[in-house]
């Protein structure tokens, strides 16, 4: 027992020591006061006046956890949809356009916009799935390459036909006030987080105790067996991707109706939401109930890093570096993740 405890704990302590050492080195480069940086980190992640920064963390966690759930659904089915960014962007763009141009009561526009955004994101993912099924383009590469057309398409739309020229930036007009997601009383946190809580609960139930979720998981663990069992593999693939892309599209809609109230060029790409979502899922080895916790943890690292920048003048990219380093050290210890191993020699 004693020995078991030691052999299990020591590698983790070594990892922590490494991470701490790297942090220290980065701060030395930036000439920062260590104590100030640490207090700035915790204040930025969980503090602030009236917990304002904690609300920022929750707001960011909403988007990251949402993207993480989208990734989880597809990864568990053995589908390496790393095109979450494109699906997020088309969702956000469609939501913004519906919000601005669809007349009607606010709540109805929100619902219509969310449905349209989910459809757009879902179809963008299905497109990558069809490229794999019918043409033989590996999903990993196909989904990723589709990020770029999505990004430039959105960029074109908000720079030319739907631009708010008066604002001076490549962005759409604001959506009307009625289409803004309400805030929790006394805070600056919008209700978008509730959508993600519901999606998280549904995604966890879907993954762990429904027939379609089980089939998707089976396809992830043993694709040959799934095919041999006579299950409709093509349908499982496309349905899973539709679901995964739809969640990403929903996150885009929440970012528009809750956080930004308009679509600005690059607003969903620059913060790397989709990529942080991916590593949040990988951190916990794709275990559904742990994904929201992991997403919140990564959101806290980012807002904490922003706090460090405010107090100790450490560039906030230290957060991104830490996230990457954590994943690198955990990569060899993640059980149940074997992405590249299932690639055959031709990469699909």
């Amino acid at each position, binding site marked *: 027992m004693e020995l078991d405890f030691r052999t299990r704990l020591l590698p983790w302590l070594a990892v922590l020591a490494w991470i701490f050492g790297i942090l220290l080195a980065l701060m030395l480069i930036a000439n920062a006061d260590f104590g100030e940086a640490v207090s700035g980190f915790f204040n930025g992640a969980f503090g602030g006046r009236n917990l304002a920064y904690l609300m920022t963390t929750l707001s960011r966690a909403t988007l990251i956890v949402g993207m993480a759930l989208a990734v989880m659904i597809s990864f568990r089915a053995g589908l390496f949809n790393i095109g979450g960014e494109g699906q997020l962007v088309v969702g956000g763009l469609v939501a913004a356009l519906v919000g601005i141009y669809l007349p009607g009561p606010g709540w109805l526009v929100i619902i219509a916009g969310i449905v349209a955004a989910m459809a757009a994101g879902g179809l963008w993912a299905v497109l990558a799935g069809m490229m794999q099924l019918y043409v*033989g383009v590996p999903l990993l590469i196909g989904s990723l*390459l589709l990020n770029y057309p999505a990004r*430039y398409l959105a960029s074109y739309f908000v720079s*030319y036909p739907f631009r708010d020229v008066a604002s001076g930036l490549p962005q759409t007009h604001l959506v009307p006030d009625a289409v803004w997601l309400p805030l929790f009383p006394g805070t600056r946190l919008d209700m978008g987080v509730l959508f993600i809580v519901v999606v998280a609960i549904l995604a966890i139930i879907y993954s762990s105790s429904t027939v379609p979720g089980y089939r998707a998981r089976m396809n992830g663990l043993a694709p040959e067996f799934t095919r041999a069992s006579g299950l409709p593999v093509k349908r499982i693939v496309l349905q899973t991707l539709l679901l995964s892309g739809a969640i990403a599209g929903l996150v885009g809609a929440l970012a528009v109706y809750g956080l930004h109230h308009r679509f600005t060029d690059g607003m969903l790409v620059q913060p790397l939401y989709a*990529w942080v979502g991916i590593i949040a899922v990988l951190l916990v080895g794709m275990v559904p109930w742990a994904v929201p916790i992991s997403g919140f943890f990564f959101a806290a690292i980012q807002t904490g890093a922003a706090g460090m920048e405010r107090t100790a003048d450490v560039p906030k990219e230290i957060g991104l570096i830490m996230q990457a380093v954590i994943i690198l050290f955990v990569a060899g210890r*993640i059980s149940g*993740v074997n992405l*590249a191993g299932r690639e055959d020699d031709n990469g699909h």
Partner: protein
Amino acid sequence: MGIDLLLDPAFLQSVPRFLTPILLAALGGAICERAGVFNIALEGFILVGAFCAVLGSYLFGSPWWGALTAIAGGVVMGLLFAEFSLRRKGDAIVVSIALNLLAAGVTVYLLRAIFGVSGAFRDPGIKGFSGIDIPLLRDIPVLGPLLNGQSALFYFAVIAAFALQWFFAHHRLGLRLRAAGENPTGLASGGVSVQGVRLWALVLCGALCGLAGAQLSIANVNLFVENMSAGRGWIAVVAVLLTRGRPLYVLFIALLFGFVDSLSFRIQGVGLPQQFTDVMPYLATLIVLIGLSAWRKSKTA
């Protein structure tokens, strides 16, 4: 806009500039591919190379030092990949995604911490590569003027493609490297460390990707911009995938993508929105990928 553009010497002379980063990175990827390492972190490797090239050139006042620093930066990335994927047995895709994020973070962090700027770093102290005038090449009709006067990295990249082709086919170490990808068990039973071979593949890949970054930051322009690699690493990944790591095919694909890249750059001036021209290399990559995949699928069916 039309056929006269395609025959315009100024346009054709810009093709090698755009082809070089893709070619160097894809050759690096090809080495990994043949050694059985699934490396999709080329984007991050290039980005680190581009940053280090500017750093080295700025500190030591010469593009050659910039190129060496870029190689060093790329090699460090290769060693990180080896450490976490070979030694610590991390999944190659997971490690790749993490390294791409690490590169994005580290380059911006150091840009702000060392130079105190964000966004872009320009400085007269950054010395870039200028074109080399090669007398024999200059005198070749038609092709001469197009190929002459490019950066040293371009000539190196083309030579590297041919050298690698020979290396894989005839050299003892090249055969060993291929065995690490095609028959690792056999190689191990011959008493050769597969891990060791793959480590060297990653080091070489890092060096080539570092140079790809150097072409971007101290040959094509003389500055570093955040996220400068802008997807070229992924285009290189596709080039590797399509050619299955055969260097001369890689050269051909890089020529194709480099051509589209320079075309898109060229027609920015004719009134098309920039987004339309920016997306061209990616659409071309998608189209080629779909076309070739479909053709392969039909052959095997």
